[in-house]
């Protein structure tokens, strides 16, 4: 017995000595605030953390859950979090109002925004939306692009009924039949609906009807970027590796996420979500690039859409180059 304890002690001692020098080497503590509670889209960061990609760049990464892209952008602007994973369109709107934030990488180059409902309701084209009830969350990024989708597909406000509620209410409404459709992401809401009801979901993607804008990306505070360009470069190197590896090995990514956050979902559906996420890493105008690099045309289109429909004031918005940069990517 005593012998066993002493070996245990020796082992711990050895461990602490071995890890000593590594701990002494001061790592940069960095908070990455996500756009929402953890779901499959975030798995790459957990994979990168588990595999030590960030550690190898001298970064001690702390991943924190968010409560909507808007809040994440504000937290990064205020310096509460150094990095944010947020909807880039939302970030642009905040930046146009003076928030000192900039996108240093765009993960989802095609918007996953969709209007979706149970597959057995047979709502597969915009025309099928007529006479149905759609649940939206007022003020969120999807509800703001929704009018543009309606315009492009020749639908009028009067063609369908709309109900408004928060993120959970939207899901509840569709599950309980108070609404036929909701605005959401295939890798988020569709999976939640599927997990709750075991029924198939059919998403009608906005992007398939000519409404495309970039989606989630990595954002930083401008002052922080000015002071720590090297750190941001190291972070983005690790992030790029994480996304590449997650795209190649989605199962490992989902496992890493579920290990760090057992409550964040079920493995099978999270895997579907992770694969759908990785499918959006390639940009339409720069398919050969590594993930997180975004094409100028893609960003310009996003900007034009925001000016036209997203409530972005053209006069004060300036130019799109103020809002993103590829300079810190490998």
């Amino acid at each position, binding site marked *: 017995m005593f012998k066993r304890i002493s070996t245990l002690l020796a082992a711990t001692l050895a461990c602490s000595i071995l890890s000593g020098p590594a701990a002494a080497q001061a790592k940069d503590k960095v908070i990455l605030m996500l756009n929402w509670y953890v779901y499959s889209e975030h798995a790459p960061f957990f994979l990168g953390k588990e595999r030590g990609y960030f550690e190898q760049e001298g970064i001690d990464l702390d991943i924190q859950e968010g409560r909507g892209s808007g809040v994440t952008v504000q937290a990064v602007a205020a310096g509460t979090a150094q990095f944010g994973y947020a909807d880039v369109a939302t970030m642009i*709107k905040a930046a146009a*109002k003076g*928030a*000192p934030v900039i996108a240093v990488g765009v993960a989802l180059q095609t918007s996953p925004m969709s209007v979706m409902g149970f597959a057995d309701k047979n709502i597969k084209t915009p025309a099928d939306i007529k006479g149905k009830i759609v649940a939206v969350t007022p*003020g969120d990024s999807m509800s703001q692009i929704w009018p543009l989708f309606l315009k492009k597909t020749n639908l009028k406000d009067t063609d369908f009924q709309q109900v408004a509620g928060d993120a959970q209410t939207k899901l*509840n*409404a569709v599950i309980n039949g108070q609404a036929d459709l909701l605005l959401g992401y295939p890798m988020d809401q569709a999976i939640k609906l599927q997990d709750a009801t075991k029924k198939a979901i059919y998403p009608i993607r906005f992007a398939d009807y000519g409404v495309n804008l970039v989606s989630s990306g990595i954002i930083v505070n401008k002052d922080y970027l000015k002071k720590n360009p090297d750190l941001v470069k190291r972070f983005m190197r690790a992030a790029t590796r994480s996304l590449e590896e997650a795209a190649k090995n989605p199962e490992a990514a989902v496992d890493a996420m579920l290990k760090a956050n057992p409550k964040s979902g079920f493995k099978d559906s999270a895997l579907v979500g992770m694969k759908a996420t990785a499918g959006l890493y390639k940009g339409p105008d720069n398919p050969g690039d590594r993930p997180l690099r975004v094409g100028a045309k893609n960003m310009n289109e996003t900007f034009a859409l925001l000016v036209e429909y997203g409530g972005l004031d053209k006069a004060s918005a300036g130019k799109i180059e103020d809002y993103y940069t590829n300079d810190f990517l490998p």
Partner: protein
Amino acid sequence: MTAKSRPLWQRILLSVWLRPILLVIILLVLWDLAIRLFKVPPYLIPAPEAVVRQLINEWPKLWRESLVTTYATLGGFALSIAFGIPMALLIAYSRTVESFVYPLLVFSQSIPKIAIAPLFVVWFGFGIIPKVICAFLLGFFPIVVSTVAGFKSVDNDMIDLARSMKAGRLATFMRISLPQALPSLFAGLKVSVTLAVVGAVVGEFVGSNSGIGYLLQIANGNFDLPLMFAALVVLSMIGVLLFVAVDVVERLMIPWHASHRNDFTATA
């Protein structure tokens, strides 16, 4: 007497109605100064001037949505009274009811309403009902607690006196118990009506197509902080007006009470 001998500007300055407004102005100036001094960026806290501008520009919309929220608040407040006061009477007059119901009531009060509010939308849809229920759930507890306290603190000697003079139960209740309980009942009503406003907005946050809560969500999504603050100002005004309304009713019903006697001489 002293009031008359004072010059007009002093009387205006010291009038009861003007004091809170004066304080508001001082706070606005401090707010503005703080933003200028500490260079608080507008995406974190807007300048008061921007809020006032939005308040004026968006007034028609704010007015429309505030009516919706007021209806839900009043509905919840009415329900709180309709359920709260009878419940309080039962608790105050029956030890059995008290021992069964009161602990459960306290227990239920500790449940965060925002956590169960989404369920109300599932059960009752997107109309006014979930909001009214939220307002009711927040509003009814203070009424029960203070009404129970009011009836329990009735002077027993007074009741004995009434009995010795052969007053019936009803007469004792109407002449002795109720008047003595009214002040604390009204204290509960005042807390209740302001909480009902909060409840209605919680309901609107969770699921609603209209109301100040709905407007707050949209303003938040657009980083329109001035509009958000303007909506909050309107919301607080609803709370203040309803509070004043209850206060007026209280003055009419219990003008004899100590809390009003001073005011009456001061304003007379």
